[in-house]
């Protein structure tokens, strides 16, 4: 795939026509990632992770390696040696989504492995940037390549979130040393992205001046682009589109548990800087190491996630550009954020006798908007310059190549005039936390999944465990509770009687990895 794509980079005009034949493949510029993911997301909403995983695999049948020549392991599964393997390598989105689906299916080890593959791709990008910042920034400002045929390295917030989710996986698996390393990487990644964006911003401004692009976001708004959606209070409240308050809070929790208070303090402090109104974070600041759990208690961190990350969709806006010495309103495509919606976050949960307040730390929807808002000037510049160049090409083709040339370049225009829709879709829309010192043993948990509907289940708190982190995912009424220390007592779980819920049997697993998922609809 990768070979194919880099090839495409340099020969895009020639290959554009040929590519029409290859619809449905991951590396193809006609792929509508949003449409492709809809089935997978519905399956997750319905609580069928196994089927969702199969759907994901079907969507990512590789163009070159699906044949018999692919390396296979003992069980006949295709071997995945490295994400960077140019032939069998799938794109980063595949690994993003697969890791997430395994996480929901409570197969933490597989989820970690998949995300480590994705991480390899992000690290390649980081190394490229470290080794040659000018080149990577230059690529970001390359004007003639359509955004959707660039290699997708993950959006900024996805890169940081990936690292935060890997940290959580390591903690759930009990690999605290790996978690420690991963956290360090998260914060280095944040710094790297920050420096990249600063430099890129300067470069884009400079490039636009050079190319004589005068179109601004205001012009876009005037012609019907929904700019206010990118400019709401939640978006403005964010410092940037990539820093992850949860990653910092998790560091605070982690180091407070290990007794390294001098590292826990900056964790809470950074989290508070990103979520200044959070009471849960403020309660911890300057009180690190206080209110530690008693002998038979554990400091339990609930990580509640709801919904799916928003989609990027194309919207066509007529923009006046100068073609052949005339100003013409030309329809051009730009990405917009379309919320998946339905991400219900309960205001509190009930665990045992305690009512725990739930506070949102990460709003992926707002982050995606913020990031797009920051990227929009660059996207405008590239789109406008490309449109000018292309119309010149078309003009030339019609003049010299007759009808056939016109058709070829016409196709090229259709192919390239779609905005980039790729995004990690199974990422939650919002992430919230609840935390308390809870007595050890089995505890009843009640999670509101929609106004008036409650999920009831049981979790196990183990004071002997170094860290008690319980991830909970709420999507469309289905609740996934991942609890690495929960035993597989299916009968202990009640669903709300009034809904007549169908309880889906969780497969029997070893106590270390067993989990529950219940449909409450």
């Amino acid at each position, binding site marked *: 795939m990768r070979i194919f794509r880099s090839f495409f980079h340099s020969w895009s005009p020639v290959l554009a026509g040929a590519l029409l034949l290859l619809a449905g493949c991951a590396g193809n510029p006609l792929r509508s990632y949003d449409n492709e993911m809809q089935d997978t997301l519905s399956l997750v909403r319905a609580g069928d992770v196994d089927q969702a995983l199969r759907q994901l695999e079907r969507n990512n049948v590789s163009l070159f390696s699906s044949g018999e020549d692919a390396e296979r392991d003992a069980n006949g599964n295709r071997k995945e040696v490295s994400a960077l393997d140019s032939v069998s390598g799938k794109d980063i989105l595949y690994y993003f989504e697969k890791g997430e689906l395994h996480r929901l299916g409570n197969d933490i080890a597989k989820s970690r492995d998949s995300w480590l593959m994705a991480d390899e791709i992000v690290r390649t990008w980081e190394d490229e940037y470290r080794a040659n910042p000018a080149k990577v920034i230059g690529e970001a400002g390359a004007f003639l390549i359509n955004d959707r045929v660039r290699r997708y390295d993950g959006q900024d917030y996805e890169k940081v979130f990936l690292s935060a989710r890997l940290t959580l996986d390591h903690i759930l698996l009990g690999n605290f040393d790996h978690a420690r390393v991963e*956290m*360090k990487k998260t*914060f280095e990644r944040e710094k790297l992205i920050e420096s990249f964006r*600063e430099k890129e911003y300067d470069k884009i401004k400079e490039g636009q001046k050079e190319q004589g692009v005068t179109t601004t976001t205001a012009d876009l708004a005037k012609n019907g682009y929904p700019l206010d959606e990118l400019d709401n209070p939640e978006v403005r409240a964010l410092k940037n589109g990539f820093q992850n308050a949860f990653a910092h809070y998790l*560091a605070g929790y982690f180091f407070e548990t*290990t*007794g*390294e*208070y*001098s*590292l826990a*303090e*900056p*964790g809470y*402090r*950074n989290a508070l*800087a990103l979520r200044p109104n959070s009471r849960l974070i403020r309660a911890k600041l300057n009180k690190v*190491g206080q209110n530690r759990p008693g002998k038979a208690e554990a400091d339990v961190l609930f990580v509640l996630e709801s919904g799916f990350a928003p989609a990027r969709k194309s919207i066509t806006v007529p923009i006046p550009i100068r073609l052949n010495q005339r100003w013409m309103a030309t329809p051009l495509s730009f990405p917009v954020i379309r919320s998946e919606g339905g991400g219900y976050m309960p205001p509190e949960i009930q665990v045992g006798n305690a009512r725990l307040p739930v506070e949102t730390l990460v709003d992926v929807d707002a982050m995606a908007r913020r990031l797009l808002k920051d990227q929009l000037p660059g996207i405008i510049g590239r789109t406008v310059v490309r449109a000018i160049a292309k119309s010149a090409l078309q003009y030339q083709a019609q003049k010299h190549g007759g009808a056939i040339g016109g058709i070829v370049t016409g196709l090229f225009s259709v192919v390239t005039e779609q905005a980039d829709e790729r995004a990690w879709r199974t990422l939650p829309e919002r992430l919230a936390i609840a935390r308390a010192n809870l007595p050890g043993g089995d505890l009843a948990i009640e999670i509101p999944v929609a106004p008036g509907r409650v999920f009831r289940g049981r979790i196990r708190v183990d004071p002997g465990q170094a860290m008690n982190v319980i991830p909970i995912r709420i999507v469309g009424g289905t609740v996934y509770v991942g609890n690495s220390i929960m035993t597989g007592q299916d009968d202990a779980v009640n669903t709300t009687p009034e809904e007549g819920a169908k309880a889906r049997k969780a497969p029997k697993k070893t106590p270390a990895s067993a989990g529950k998922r219940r449909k409450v609809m």
Partner: protein
Amino acid sequence: MNRHKLTKTLLPALAVLALAACQTNSPVVGDGSVSYGDAKAVEAVTTDLGSTDIQTTAETMTRSLLQHPVIQTAIRRRELLVASPVQNKTSEYFDTSLITDTILAQLQKNGMRYVVEGANMQNQVDELRRQNQSGLYKKSTTAKIGGMHGAKFRLDGSVSSITKKNNSMKDVYYKINLRLIEIETGIVEWSDEKEIRKSAKR
């Protein structure tokens, strides 16, 4: 053999010898892309707290402590010191034990004694329990429980920072404050500060 021939053969030989003497082989494996640097060099890579800051802070603090009569008396009387966790009030992931560990090590070279604390304390307790409760050890060699010494003084403090940024530069001011507290009385016997200013062009 005439003189001319002699110079013709001998001098190049000498030259080769000289060359060989100049370029000795270093006992190094590798292609030269990785090298060892001076651990004491001034590190100015970012405005974050770095090796130079840790080293100079620990040095300043140790020397200031060493001059103080309380410490000099403590060394003579072989009194004990313990380092409490130094608070990190900055938003940098900086392990303050990097500073206190160095201070303790340097003080100990001058005869100061200190006791374990924090994460090391857990290891200490574990080992004591293992020796006494596992039943694996010879009675005469086990360390007895209840014999650990309490410290007379403790070292405490905080690291704070103020960061200012504008379009062209970033300026960070760090203040590291340390105190020596007599545990029984709570009296602060000594305190000192180290200030560091780091600026970077953006």
